[in-house]
């Protein structure tokens, strides 16, 4: 998170180039639904806490108002367990989402976007459900972006994103847990976009 102010300054001072590639740097928060719900005499839920998030996106015009881009998002928060009413934290859970995105206009300042990609889980401790390794899962997502130019080459951008992926781990597979847990993630970010 400490690199954010410096990166914002660098983004604002960078010299514009003739092409229309844009670079967007955002920060915000991500909320995830539970990763596992188990029943062992009572209900156990494993859920990431609301995670501070940083996103970096590069996009390029694709014609007729559309843009294509690549985005990387890093989120990090405590992994919380609710064990039949008893709360506990199991270290830190970091996620890296990498998505290919398509962006199109809805209104003058509002765009939709949608994409596919992957989410990588990186827990601080490879124990429990992560004891046989942390998973990488495919992910789809979509959302809305509101943008407002503040200078000829700099735009303020607010983004809301919903994403979905199926979650399981090798350890859960080994122990014969079936199917997967549908994980829904909602992220809100605010950032700046620089056109080049």
């Amino acid at each position: 998170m400490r690199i954010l102010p410096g990166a914002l300054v660098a983004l604002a001072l960078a010299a514009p180039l003739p092409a229309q590639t844009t670079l967007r740097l955002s920060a915000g928060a991500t909320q995830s639904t539970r990763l596992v719900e188990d029943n062992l005499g009572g209900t156990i839920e494993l859920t990431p806490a609301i995670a501070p998030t940083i996103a970096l996106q590069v996009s390029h015009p694709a014609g007729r108002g559309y843009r294509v881009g690549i985005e990387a998002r890093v989120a990090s928060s405590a992994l919380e367990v609710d064990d039949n009413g008893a709360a506990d934290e199991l270290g830190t859970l970091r996620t890296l989402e990498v998505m290919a995105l398509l962006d199109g206009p809805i209104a003058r300042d509002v765009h939709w976007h949608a994409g596919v990609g992957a989410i990588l889980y990186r827990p601080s401790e490879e124990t429990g459900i992560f004891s046989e390794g942390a998973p990488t899962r495919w992910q789809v997502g979509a959302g809305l972006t509101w943008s407002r130019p503040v200078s000829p080459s700099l735009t303020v951008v607010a983004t809301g994103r919903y994403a979905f992926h199926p979650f399981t781990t090798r350890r859960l597979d080994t122990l014969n847990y079936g199917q997967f847990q549908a994980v829904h993630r909602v992220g809100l970010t605010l950032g700046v976009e620089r056109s080049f």
Partner: protein
Amino acid sequence: MRHLGSFLLVLGAAATAGCSEIASPRRAASYEYRVFVSNQTGGTDTLAFHWPRSTMPVRIWVASDDPLREGVLAAIERWEGAFLYGEWRADLVSDSSRADIIVRNVIAPAGPNLSRLESLAPQCLGATDIDANRAQRRLTLPIRVYVWPRFLANDPEMPTCYRLTVTHEIGHAIGIFAHSPNSGDVMFANPVLDGISERDRLTAETAYHLAPTLEPFGRR
């Protein structure tokens, strides 16, 4: 907007899949982990214990030059690995006066009013002393674990014996008070397994998800 419609269709399909819940497996039979003792009224008291989440991580002390230290580290890793949701976690501490579990490489001393759980591996012996007050539903800390050589301390098999016996005794200390009837489990009374079995794992899991009859008391 045509592309948006297509994608929303795909997203809708994903959201339909999004109702999926992970399915818990059918769990194989575990063995009895509780101890049943007669009380003064002619009835039976059940001794069942697990460390509450508020006590995590459990603090274990073993001397830095103790030959059991490697076995204690192995036991912590093994029993922590038995749980999926961090139900039991432990750290070594350097101050024995703050420990919840004290491990020593000496013959278990005689002690009044203690529940002693023992193990009989081929080269070494183990005992775990638990100070349980059934009337007050208290288990007074610390739990004391002793592991010592049966014959010669320099037996080449001693490191293995120490490791599996400490794993067995720490198994008692985490709440598996009874012995497994199966020789393939580390909690068998005469343990030979250098590790923990799936039955051991399921028994520990069960112990941590059923109500205890004892609560830890006197934690420093």
